[in-house]
């Protein structure tokens, strides 16, 4: 068109824009929401973003839980320590568990004393007691994936991570871990 000299115009958009096509950009876009003030304001009653709605009860934050700079939605039960993270509906974070810089998809369960660092936890995944996801001192080359870069780990939907299992950074776990499984 340009070659033909046709009239082509450009419009400069100056709002929030993010092309989410990789695990890292998905993680970044979610973290943008946690900025204070958010890089992308979703909380606008005049411009709602509509979605499917699961109709779950309000989320519960237990005594002893810690919550700092997070986004939490209905049906969650938080007994542990969550920091700079996003919890989707129906997520459980048990006592002593720590979730940091992470996104936890619907229905996932983070068991007692598990630690999640900079990870994307898939729908209905279960992270066993005392397991560590995103452990810098663990070599998980068997889970290395070209899709997981920038220090982000990804646990697939429905995956069960065994108690005490350690998963290193940049891992993508798509099959279950631990004895008797795989």
């Amino acid at each position, binding site marked *: 068109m340009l070659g033909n000299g046709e009239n082509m115009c450009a419009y400069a958009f100056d709002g929030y824009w993010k092309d989410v096509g990789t695990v890292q950009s998905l993680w970044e876009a979610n973290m943008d929401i*946690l900025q*204070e003030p*958010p890089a992308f304001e*979703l*909380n606008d*009653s005049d411009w*709602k*973003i*509509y*979605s499917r*709605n699961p*109709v*779950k*009860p*309000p*989320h*519960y*934050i*237990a*005594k*002893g*839980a*810690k*919550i*700092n*700079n*997070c*986004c*939490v*939605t*209905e049906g969650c039960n938080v007994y542990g320590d969550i920091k700079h993270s*996003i*919890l989707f509906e129906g997520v459980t974070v048990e006592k002593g568990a720590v979730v940091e810089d992470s996104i936890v998809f619907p229905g996932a369960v983070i068991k007692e004393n598990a630690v999640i660092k900079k990870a994307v936890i898939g729908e209905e995944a279960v992270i066993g007691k005392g397991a560590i996801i995103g452990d810098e001192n663990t070599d998980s080359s068997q889970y290395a994936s070209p899709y997981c870069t920038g220090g982000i780990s990804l646990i697939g939907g429905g995956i069960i991570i065994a108690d005490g299992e350690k998963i290193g950074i940049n891992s993508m776990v798509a099959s279950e871990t631990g004895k008797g499984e795989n």
Partner: protein
Amino acid sequence: MKDMMGIVMADNSELTLNELTELRSIPALPFGGRYRLIDFILSNMVNSGIINVGIATNINYSSLMDHVGSGAPWDLNRKIYGLFMLPPYVRGGAGGISTGSIDQLYGVLTFLRRSRQQYVVLASGRTVCNMTFDEALKLHIEKDADITVVYRDVKEKNDQLSRSNVYEVDENGRVNGMETSPRYPKTTLQGMGMFIIERIKLIELIEDAYARGSHDFVRDILMTAVNSHKVYGYEYKGFVGIVDSIRSYYETNMKMLESDVRRDIFGSENRIYTKVKDQVPTQYGKTAEVSDSLIADGCIIEGTVENSIIFRGVHIAKGAVIKNSIVMQNSVIEENCDIENVIIDKECTLRQSKRLVGQPNYPVILPKRTLL
């Protein structure tokens, strides 16, 4: 279970919760962070397979109508049957605003006659529980009962019994005595405001009572029926909260902070449905401190929340402390406020550094849209 219909008696003019019910009926009271009381009975009905529900209203029902809408959240927006609001007739047989539940039921006669289900669940809209009526109906049919009342055993006598129907039930489940609002209740079997009865029989009873100039379903129909008809009791053993005063409203809300109660009410396969608002998740700031609280979507929490219930779209600013309180939709608590044992109705604003403290058994109420 398909052969059953439901009628929710959405008013009880004898009960008020002061400022909270000034502009709304009790079933329209916000509850548990995102619900209204009527959600529980409506969900219980549809979870029992009921597809034909009438809501008999009397006064102040606009917030109720706004909330239930077409019945879509309960899948009651149907072509055949569905959800029917039954406001009072201003003229005609019932003579406008009703003076008792018989007048209210008289207005429902057309709806009853037009329906084809064999059985009716007649229920108040202020009982919080998650149950289906399958077992109660089974008992009703097995015993060939005329009326089956649903009750719970509160085990110890309490002041709420003196505002309830209290039953005497024999070993076969037959109700052989009842009291209503007794000063000294004979038993601890408290009615849950739910009755099962055949539709044709209910029509007859209402017509008879109305012809005799009676006004009250409980006093004029049920109490006489205990002697003249086969009235049976079905005992429900799950969690039950009955809201009939500010104190019971506050306490039933606070019960939702107990995990076994929450499991009973919200953990079942049978969900409690409510109007959906597509709000964003709640944002917790870096200064947020939250403990033992239920928090709905769309909130911004930057202060401290303890042992409280926070409804949708509430903003709690830095330095504000909320304890043992209920904060309803879209209220704003500004910096350094100190709130304890308070019920804050919808859309209130508390400017900076306000201090409000109620008693644990006597919470302070801030009416809707208060600016303090």
